[in-house]
């Protein structure tokens, strides 16, 4: 499997990433909210969020700044459909974006 396919498929199949995508699908949420609702350790959640954001699977919708100067980012899921298929000896990861203005689905082929 190609490196990029492997990375994306691992990210989509990861339990914590799955929870984050589910929780941010219908409304934007902060990392703290996600941790409180899902029980994901905060440091783990931040690491996943960074990986998901880098892959474009989530995006930061807005950033609030608390009076104490702390930033609080709200993320929303960008994925509409994700498919991992194995056909004729080839793996394929296909992502359809919720934002239909974006380019067509990512297709990562081996």
């Amino acid at each position, binding site marked *: 499997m190609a490196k990029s396919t492997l990375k994306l498929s691992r990210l989509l199949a990861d339990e914590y990433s799955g929870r984050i995508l589910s929780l941010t699908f219908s409304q934007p949420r902060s990392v703290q909210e996600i941790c*409180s609702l899902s029980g994901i350790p905060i440091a783990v959640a931040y*690491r996943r969020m960074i990986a998901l954001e880098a892959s474009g699977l989530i995006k930061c919708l807005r950033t609030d700044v608390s009076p104490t100067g702390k930033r609080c980012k709200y993320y929303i899921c960008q994925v509409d459909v994700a498919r991992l298929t194995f056909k004729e000896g080839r793996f394929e990861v296909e992502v359809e974006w919720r934002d239909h203005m974006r380019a067509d689905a990512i297709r990562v082929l081996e």
Partner: protein
Amino acid sequence: MPHPDVFARCDVSATNAGALPREMIDFLLSPGGHSLLIKGDAGTGKTTMALQTIEALSERQPEYYLSSRVSDVALYHQFPWLKERVEKNQLMKAGMAFLRRSWNSDGSKRNALEDVELRVERRELNRLEGQIEAGELGMEDEEGPSLNADGSLTVEVGSILPELEMAYDIAESNLPKKTLVVLDSVEALAENYGIPAYRIMNALQKDLVEKAGTNVIFVMETAERNHLDYLGDGIIVLRNSVHGNNRIRTIEIEKLRGSSIRNWKYLFTLEGGRVTVVGRDLDLRGLRLSTNPMELPAGRGSFGWSELDRLFGGAPLGSLTLVEVGAGLPMDLLERIDLSLVEEHLRKGRGVLWYPQRTFDHSSTQRSMPGTSLETLHVLDPSEASGPWPFVKKLEGTDLANDLRWDSLKYLLKDSKEPYLSVLGLDALESVYGKVGPKLMQHVDLMRRGGHMVVLEATDGSAGLETLSHQARLHLRLENLNGSVLLRGIKPTTICYCLDMTEGVPLWKPML
């Protein structure tokens, strides 16, 4: 005369109930902030000790208790104040979150929290949060339990480690007064955050302990030495160990930086759900043992000490009772146990045969048992000492069977009431007669058949100990462990008891 240090009463800090080592309390009360690691495996009493420390210092140091086990109902029963404090912490946490949200972003709306002039520097905490936010920090194993520490769903905007920030807030709001922060346990908190425990400890040590003068207790879930040990100013390890058939609990003080440690090891009990340190190196001079005011059941004879009667129901008549004595026991206690036993039976006019385990001055016998008639007392003495003591029966010291001939003893006891009492020191007999097994048993058998009471005192060095243990119906063992006096029943098996003098009278307290 000054009290020699070696006999000094165990110095403990009594709380509402229970007692903690004085060294530990002094360490937390000494100037400046201190971190203390309370380490121990499951069930060793770490949480109880941490909560009791909060109680002991509650008058002087406001506290913040963060537990991964706050829903433990049993703890609420032991520490009724705990539920209220935990709820208060939750309210404060929610309240602080609300206040922060209500501030204007330009900071124009001030409130009490911001008006505090004394601040706790949060450099390490901010650094830690920054690293978490950047995704730079994580545990190697990320698949551990992911429950929140307290089940709370309170979300503080912009706060990555809300429980720790709460500790900082409380320490800050109490300044210049010292706060006691207790994290129970640091491993559970680290797991909840998904960061290494040492990062939490390091941040709190540098910010709270070293810069803000806060006391921080880290409860840790293992007694093993590890790389976290160097982070604490003090380390206390709680252990459970097996002693005979019993469990013994110990507190080991490994270090208390800047404080002197007089006793590095204490035995303790968790009786009543409280840590109670067992007294050690007790001063037992002039000890008096109270007699049993209650009637014992038929077939039982009193030990002359209500505490022994309470634990064992007295000694069985028509049977052998073996009292095994370990090394290092206070002589005052052993002598007083013997005297109380003998005195009890003399008061009732019963015939007493006594071959003492320890040499004693016959002239002091009456002084040791004031007001007690010695008419029915017969001290068996093979030595050549002589004097005007009618209660001393001289023995030849060559043939035990001959010296303990029943007809001659019966003659001695003819004016005494039954059942008779025979108190024999096995080591003393062996030192005079050599191996005494079969010949001694002749005497024991005759006493048993007559329904009398035979108490044999032996040390672990007695040659005949094992044989006589087989013959005994009741076998007790007194021993010295770490300077504390312990008692346990070997036959029948009982839990271990420790001698306690905190109320001024000697009591056997269960080692639970």
